[in-house]
């Protein structure tokens, strides 16, 4: 008999490819958090007073809040005074005026990450806003977007150039005091991306933000706000990496999406923050609040996420389906291996009539990985004819991992149809053997099965991200045959 090491772990033990560190001069404030630090951040960014006051309100709310404990995650307490709340690459001027002024080391960093910022080298049809530690370092294709009337810029720029829009929408989906991490973010956020798609405009290209945590002992607190005005459409991509460090780093972002009547927002994430090593040392603590408000009638918000990184993921991209006939979607693949922990899922809050939501969650746990799907589907009394379908599957590899499912369904309207299905199973030895007996190597067989398992989610990703996502899982793209 052949010696058969069904060592699926080997497949999962992928090396973290983005673990390098960029040696660059930074302007970093000392660790610690109080109102002075918030004033300093606001001041450095030349913010109007209303925004400073908004931050301070959030800070005061945060001080009264406790770290949530309901999630299925264990970690040592986070010392919020040991974190530096502002770090920016030092440059001669306040902000680079064009790519030529961007520090070549930064450009090199993004090249290494496969995110070239030089427009001529760009993937056609994708505009990128690169956020390095706390600040946006470059936004590409600005001119072309400007022609279409699309605003795509760093959050700091938006505060300066489009204060009315920021003021109108900031915090309108995720209020300052929404939860512990959102409150912290609202107090100290340093940058992020801002997108506004005017009425009736179909954004001419994919928009993308690439987040990179580089500096030590810094937290990254970016804020993304996307507003799709009536009848507009946008597809937005987000990618994340961080250097390999032994310390845990905190990432607490907030993403707010607003879709007005007939607007359509598609938000895709490939999260590949440093997950820590095989002993559970280091890695990003990712506590993120993402929420979309399908405010207008016939609006649509779609979240797709592939979560392979972070030591801890705490994240529930959600949709408030306020407008009649609005649609919310959540497609997720989450992989936890080594000692990674993830508590992730979504909320679909049905308020409008004929609202529809779809949730497809695929969790893969390997080695000591532990993950929970946590989802809420709420059908309010006003949501006549609401529909939800939830499919939630877990694949287990190795006897030390865990997979948990906590779906909440609250139905207060009798015309609603809500369906939830979940399965948990081992990666099938039968399936592996079947593939191998047809001449396919074990690794390829695992790839095929995992890829098949995740297919419903991958097909929702824009092409460029689908490729990256599949690479991340170590899977080969299924060829279109015939």
């Amino acid at each position, binding site marked *: *008999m052949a010696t058969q090491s*069904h060592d699926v772990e080997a497949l999962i033990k992928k090396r973290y490819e983005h673990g390098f560190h960029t040696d660059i001069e930074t302007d970093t404030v000392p660790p610690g958090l109080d109102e002075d630090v918030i004033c300093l951040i606001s001041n450095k960014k030349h913010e109007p007073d209303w925004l400073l006051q908004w931050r301070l309100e959030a800070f005061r709310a945060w001080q009264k809040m406790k770290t949530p404990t309901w999630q299925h995650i264990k970690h040592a307490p986070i010392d919020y005074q040991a974190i530096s709340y502002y770090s920016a690459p030092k440059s001669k001027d306040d902000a680079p005026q064009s790519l030529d002024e961007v520090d070549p080391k930064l450009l090199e960093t993004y090249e290494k990450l496969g995110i070239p910022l030089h427009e001529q080298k760009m993937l056609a049809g994708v505009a990128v806003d690169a956020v390095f530690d706390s600040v946006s370092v470059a936004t590409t294709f600005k001119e072309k977007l400007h022609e279409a009337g699309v605003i795509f810029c760093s959050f700091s720029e938006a505060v300066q150039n489009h204060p009315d829009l920021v003021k109108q929408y900031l915090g309108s989906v995720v209020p300052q005091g929404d939860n512990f991490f959102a409150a912290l973010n609202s107090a100290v956020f340093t940058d992020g991306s801002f997108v506004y798609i005017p009425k009736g405009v179909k954004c001419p290209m994919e928009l993308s933000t690439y987040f990179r945590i580089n500096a030590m002992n810094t937290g990254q607190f970016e804020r993304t706000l996307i507003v799709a005005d009536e009848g507009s459409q946008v597809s937005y991509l987000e990618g994340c990496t961080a250097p390999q460090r032994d310390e845990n780093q905190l990432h607490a972002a907030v993403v707010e999406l607003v879709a007005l009547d007939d607007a359509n927002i598609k938000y895709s994430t490939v999260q590949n923050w440093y997950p820590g090593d095989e002993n559970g040392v280091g890695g990003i603590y990712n506590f993120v609040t993402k929420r979309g408000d399908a405010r207008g009638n016939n609006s649509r918000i779609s979240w797709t996420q592939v979560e392979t990184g972070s030591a801890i993921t705490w994240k529930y991209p959600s949709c408030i389906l306020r407008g009649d006939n609005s649609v919310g979607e959540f497609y997720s693949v989450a992989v936890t291996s080594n000692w990674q922990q993830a508590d992730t899922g979504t909320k679909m809050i049905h308020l409008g009539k004929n609202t529809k939501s779809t949730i497809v969650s695929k969790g893969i746990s390997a080695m000591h990985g532990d993950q929970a799907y946590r989802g809420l589907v709420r059908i309010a009394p006003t949501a006549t004819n609401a529909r939800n379908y939830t499919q939630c599957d877990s694949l287990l590899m190795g006897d030390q991992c865990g997979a948990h499912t906590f779906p909440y369904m609250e139905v207060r309207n009798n015309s609603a149809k809500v369906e939830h299905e979940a399965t948990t199973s081992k990666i099938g030895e039968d399936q592996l053997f079947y593939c191998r*007996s047809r001449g396919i190597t074990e690794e390829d*067989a695992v790839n*095929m*099965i995992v890829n098949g398992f995740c297919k419903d989610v991958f097909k929702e990703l824009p092409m460029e991200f689908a490729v990256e996502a599949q690479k991340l899982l170590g899977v080969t793209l299924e*060829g279109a*045959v015939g």
Partner: protein
Amino acid sequence: MLSIKNLHAQVDDTDILKGVDLEIKPGEIHAIMGPNGSGKSTLANVLAGRDDYTVTAGEILFEGQNLADMAPEERACAGLFLAFQYPVEIPGVNNIYLLKAALNAIRKSRGEDALDAVEFMKLVRERMKLVKLNEDLLNRSVNEGFSGGEKKRNEIFQMAVLEPKLAILDETDSGLDIDALKIVAEGVNAMRSPERSMILVTHYQRLLDYIKPDHVHVLADGKIIKSGDEQLAKELEERGYEWVKQEAAAA
């Protein structure tokens, strides 16, 4: 082509095969029959290299290579094919994609170029006719939602595309109605050639009405206790297995 000598095998620490000897020459069809629990399926799975099946003694030579040293995929590349008794469902994995990947893996091991999509589809369409496989099954997930008969036909279709040197058909006839059985048998007969050998593992003689074996063996309690030609199968059908067992016990 295949030479099994004194093969002993265990499943979950239980001895199932207790000294099987079998010689198969190119072009021959051997039927292995026997009562339930005699070790027929174990033999098929041991040949294909299933994990939980441990060879404790004896050897299996396939074209001079020691099978026991080979992983299941290596065996497949070497020209071995098992048509499963219970083909597994693999959600999300496209049937035709699996087949293309399998074929190209086998071609690669033989030093042949991969078939492109056009050549591959040409082959597929030609071979589909052998088992009257419905085209929409091609683009479904592997075996998912297939009827019992469709699963078995899909196995034979895979065999027709992969063109193995030695095919082991594990209870391919079980659960088939007579029409489906005829289709499967026609497919198998079309694949007969002087270079290709087959092992038909079956509980019933009726498959052998449609696929004529060169040799028939009776496996009981982990050993081949009687061998003969197709006449033996007919005798088994009429008289059951008990007399063979008694004869073997007496000898």
